[in-house]
């Protein structure tokens, strides 16, 4: 299994498109950091809206490394699934189109092991991608903008999390984001086992994410009640739950608390269920797959 994983990792990290994702993320985060370095105060004033009419706010202190990272994650984690699909959608179908999949299936390893090794290799890629995001969005932002309390804007109001109470929330959020991205990877893997070319699974995965996200966010009762609870995109935003701090009846925040812990646990459980179901389906389909010899004219 370890050898299989090494081979799959070699295949993934040999492709230039794998590094494209890292470059895109670096460029994107750099642009956000540059923008906030120049106009961070204006951005924060926009974020806090009319609050400035009632309160004296230290906007410059609010634009700190933690806030920049939170902003980056809000924008980026919606798009990272596309970068995950770019690699995960290719792992089986790419080999099918090249004709190497039949050769691989003829090796003395089970087809289940092949699929699991491929999924494990994708997990390494996703982990590396999120680690990359963490390093440049969190570590670099802290180095450039410094640390201070984090202000989190919700539709119901604002909350302030003390500087010393933030870092562990990021670790948990990135951990949660990893699970969420692995659902996307599992969808791509499943579609990849069904296809003979790479483009189809990649586009289909992106399409599914877009449609599901739109339905999740539409305030239409029919979708909210009957469809939203079954969509994986509903649970992918669970990482934000780590930044919703608990408070007393007076609105005083409780250090180290999470407002909706059961909601996060439920989301995590739903995502893990999705992963199990999708990977099992991928294994089943791959095991039943008949490999015809590829005839190149």
């Amino acid at each position: 299994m370890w050898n299989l994983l090494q081979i799959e990792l070699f295949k993934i990290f040999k492709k230039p498109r794998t590094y494209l994702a890292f470059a895109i993320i670096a460029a994107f985060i750099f642009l956000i950091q540059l923008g906030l370095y120049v106009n961070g105060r204006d951005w924060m004033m926009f974020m806090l809206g009319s609050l400035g009419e009632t309160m004296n706010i230290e906007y410059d202190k609010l634009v700190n490394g933690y806030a920049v990272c939170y902003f980056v994650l809000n924008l980026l984690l919606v798009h990272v699934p596309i970068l995950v699909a770019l690699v995960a959608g290719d792992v089986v179908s790419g080999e099918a189109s090249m004709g190497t999949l039949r050769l691989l299936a003829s090796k003395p390893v089970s087809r289940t092991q092949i699929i699991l090794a491929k999924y494990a290799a994708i997990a390494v890629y996703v982990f590396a991608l999120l680690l990359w995001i963490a390093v440049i969005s969190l570590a670099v932002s802290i180095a450039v903008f410094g640390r201070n309390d984090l202000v989190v804007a919700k539709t119901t109001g604002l909350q302030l999390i003390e500087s010393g109470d933030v870092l562990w929330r990021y670790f948990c959020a990135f951990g949660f984001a990893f699970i969420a991205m692995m659902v996307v990877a599992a969808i791509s893997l499943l579609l990849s086992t069904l296809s003979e070319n790479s483009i189809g699974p990649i586009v289909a995965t992106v399409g599914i994410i877009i449609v599901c996200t739109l339905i999740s966010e539409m305030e239409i009762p029919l979708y909210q009640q009957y469809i939203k609870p079954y969509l994986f995109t509903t649970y992918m935003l669970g990482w934000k739950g780590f930044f919703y701090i608990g408070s007393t009846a007076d609105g005083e925040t409780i250090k180290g608390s999470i407002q909706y812990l059961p909601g996060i646990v439920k989301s995590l459980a739903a995502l893990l269920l999705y992963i199990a179901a999708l990977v099992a389906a991928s294994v089943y389909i791959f095991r039943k797959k008949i490999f015809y010899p590829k005839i190149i004219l």
Partner: protein
Amino acid sequence: MKTIMLILAGFQFSPITQAQDIQLLVQKVKEKINLVNDYDAKGTMKTNVTFLKVPVAAVNVYFKKPNLLKIKNEKGISFIPKGAVNINMNNVLNSGNYSVLDAGNDKIGNTAVRVVKLLPEADTGDVILSTLYIDAVNQVILKTKTTTRDNGTYELEMSYGKYIAYGLPDKIIFTFNTKDYKMPKGVTFDFDDGTKKRTGGEKLKNQKGKMEISMSSYSINKGIADSVFK
């Protein structure tokens, strides 16, 4: 006949005497407050506003005559209500010329207080009317209500301890009007855990907010640089 004349004279002159009393009382409170040229107070600040969730903050309150006041959270960030400058009585009593009106007696808790209304003579300032509830025995202000032109009404409640000789409170509760808060559209998707319906785009209407500062110590008349207030 002589007694009746004396009683009538007493009735005739009592409003003037009362007015003089109240002027004197305000003057005495002012004198007490004027003993303080500057101070640096350490304390904790608790903010209670419907749409804000903030931790209790360790703050430093700096004051310097005539009307400089700054509340600083040295370690983190605090949202300070506009109008918080009025938590210093010096800023209220030395803010220009005003007419002093006696508004009778009242009680705050078990303490009997004199109610005084201050009407600014200039009609261009933000403050329209200030009502002071003065503890005549200790010559300190226990409560104020300030009506402003643009920022609604502020209320201030103060309790005193070891710095009562300077008219400096141990605890201040500042009540103020909060305006609508509306989060900008499209900034972020909220995480919905299913336990609470979202209030997307919904405005949080005008309500009262409260800021409570408990002072642990004052450093009085030691001098404070102007740069602190920038």
